[in-house]
């Protein structure tokens, strides 16, 4: 089969990501991978919770003194919105509207970059306060948990940008549809993790 075959909106299948065997496999494999990621993040959360506020005797930092909600609120809003924009992108993919999809993915990327910038700002701020990676078990656990999420954001961004650029001139095919689809799944998953981060790390941290 010619994976580069051109489709029209009328001939474009309902689930372009799952038409080919490769697409089906990719779809399922990626979901399974997300199942594993769930356990991975659970381990990180568990460690964070066990080490929360633990440090050398007389440590001056704690979740209550450290975290600032306004920044986290903005970051949360940005990331949630980016989740919606990537839903839009998939909506356009289903409608075989390539430009629309690329555009909404572009917006997603911009939002993702904004989130990342704020996170870098936040980390930098903490380090300046003296709360650096080696400061305590708490700092290590915090930076590792939130940082691992941050790395996922970076990977997601690189992935989506690569897809946008690579396919800019080529339009839809059954070859790249599953790729777009899994990338968007990944992006949602990043948001899922963030929901727990802002709840468990920041909100519950401020509460104490």
């Amino acid at each position, binding site marked *: 089969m010619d994976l580069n075959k051109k489709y029209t909106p009328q001939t474009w299948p309902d689930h372009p990501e799952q038409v080919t065997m490769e697409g089906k*496999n990719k779809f*399922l*494999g990626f979901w*399974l991978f997300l199942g*594993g990621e769930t356990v991975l993040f659970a381990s990180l959360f568990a460690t964070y919770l066990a080490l929360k506020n*633990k440090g050398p005797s007389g440590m001056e930092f704690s979740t209550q003194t450290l975290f600032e909600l306004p920044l986290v609120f903005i970051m949360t809003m940005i990331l949630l919105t980016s989740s919606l924009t990537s839903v839009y992108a998939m909506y356009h993919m289903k409608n075989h509207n390539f430009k629309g999809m690329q555009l909404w993915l572009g917006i997603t990327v911009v939002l993702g970059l904004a989130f990342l910038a704020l996170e870098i700002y936040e980390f930098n701020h903490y380090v300046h306060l003296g709360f650096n990676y080696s400061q*305590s078990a*708490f700092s290590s656990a915090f930076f590792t948990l939130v940082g691992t999420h941050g790395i996922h954001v970076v990977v997601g961004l690189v992935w989506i940008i*690569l897809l946008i650029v690579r396919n800019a001139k080529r339009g839809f095919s059954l070859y790249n549809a599953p790729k777009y689809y899994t990338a968007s799944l990944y992006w949602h998953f990043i948001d899922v993790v963030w929901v727990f981060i802002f709840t468990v790390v920041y909100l519950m941290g401020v509460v104490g």
Partner: protein
Amino acid sequence: MSSIAQKKGFGATLWDYLTTVDHKKIAVMYLIAGGLFFVIGGIEAMLIRIQLAKPDNDFVSAGLFNEIITMHGTTMIFLAAMPILFGFMNAVMPLQIGARDVAFPFLNSLGFWLFLFGGIFLNLSWFMGGAPDAGWTSYASLSLASPGHGIDFYAIGLQIAGAGTYIGGINFLVTIINMRAPGMTYMRMPLMTWTTFVASALILFAFPPLTIGLFFLILDRMFGGNFFDHTMGGNTIIWEHLFWIFGHPEVYILILPAFGIFSEIFAIFARKRLFGYSSMVFATVLIGFLGFMVWAHHMFTVGLGPTANAIFAVATMAIAVPTGMKIFNWLLTIWGGSIKVTVPMLYALAFIPSFVAGGVTGVMQGAAPLDYQLHDSYFIVAHFHYVIVGGVVLAILAALHLYWPLMFNQMLSEKLGKWTFWFFFIGFHMTFFIQHFLGLMGMPRRVFTFGADQGWDLFNLISSVGAFFMAAGVIILVVNIIITAVKNVPVGNDPWEDGRTLEWAIPQPVPFYNFKQTPLVRGLDTFWIEKQEGNKEGMTYAEPLSDIHMPNNSFIPFMMTVGLFIAGFGALYNGEKEWAVPVLVLGLAITVASMAVRSVKDDHGFHIHKEDLMNEKGGK
């Protein structure tokens, strides 16, 4: 294509293997690499037994001994047993379900290379300043205190190899879920496929905690983290939990495929359908699930408190029930059958009493207050070698004989096979049975020597002698393999004559696309059904002959792995050598660049045309 491969020169063959994405070739590579690591781990075991043959021995020094046991345990579990089982899964499972290949051929190859280079990385520690010495469990307080780079090699090496295993697990899962031939419903899948499925699911969920644990260890040792440093608020028990949340499922990752192999063997050589198939499937899934609920039985003496100990003790005992179901189903399979004692069957028969003996000592350890006595004594060493050697290694040896004709179209000598068996079997019981008593008599494990006159001298000697019997068995096996390979007498398909599942129906040597036409599966043991109905071809087809789509070979998996391998050294020497960070970056760059090439360069695979398929008679 495979006939062409025979005539190729060495360089071309090498290149073929470096780039192959064919599950059958990857299986062979897993087997060879795993076999090599098995011999290395075995030699380490021999060194252990030589050192412990007599009291106050100074054959190896104290520090070296700890390196040897650590590497023995790590090598055997991660680099020998699991990869060899992966080899058999790769060789057999796609054929059993009637698939042309696995779901992700590219990732299959990547998984193999990651495992191999992770293993090489780990073993390079011997030559680069000392191997890891904190036990295969690498408990955090000791592994943080351990000087030199041994533990760094352990953490990074396992991280790389573990990534390979994880990828392999996902690949198998998707293959089984998506690629089954028409008619191959879940409840018609052969047990080998079922156990591959459940073991892969365990990999999916068990490896992430290990990844995280190793990640913490790497961060603590090389990048200034404080997860396990209690003066900085860290907690070493976190490592113990993460390790065992992985570690207990790991032992079922090892034993379930072994169960699968034996299920095949009992059915074939008793000429009888597997008794209680559906309860076997149920038990497999249940064991997998319960396997995640019991990890703290390795931590009874840590001081988690009586409530935790009681809960985990009872949960641990529960696993005996599904395992027992399996044992009795196997017994009832041979009951009323027609038992032919070939070499694979010999191993299967030896497995039952050996594994039951090992399993029941496991249940004894599950009784927490009793485990306060047994823990970290030689009783534990006896238990796990009974289940691992008496279960997993016997399965590996059995499968080697059983599937050799499938993989190489030639038969291992039955006569030498029996010699191997008897040496190994007798040696195994001699080595490990007596260790139960050593443990009860107060001998702790992981001791590099022991004082005379504590009542342990004789039993240790007996144990060491047993190990030599095992070594003799393994050497005979190697001889057998060499002789067989040199003779190279083709045997054709269904060499055991009573094959029941699809893999025995395929013509030999297996064409690289496996099935010319996708088969139609008409029931459990489909090949058996066809044979009973007098179908000479052994298969009914689900589709007319048409073009076959195949994936292209690729060198990228190898390159990605090499990148990580190089990056590993950068991480290892971080903060110590000036070149560390550049090397780390370079390695990662190679990996990322290879990935980028992969994603930018379209790879649509190729087609074998119908006409070509018809020309090559019998699919050769």
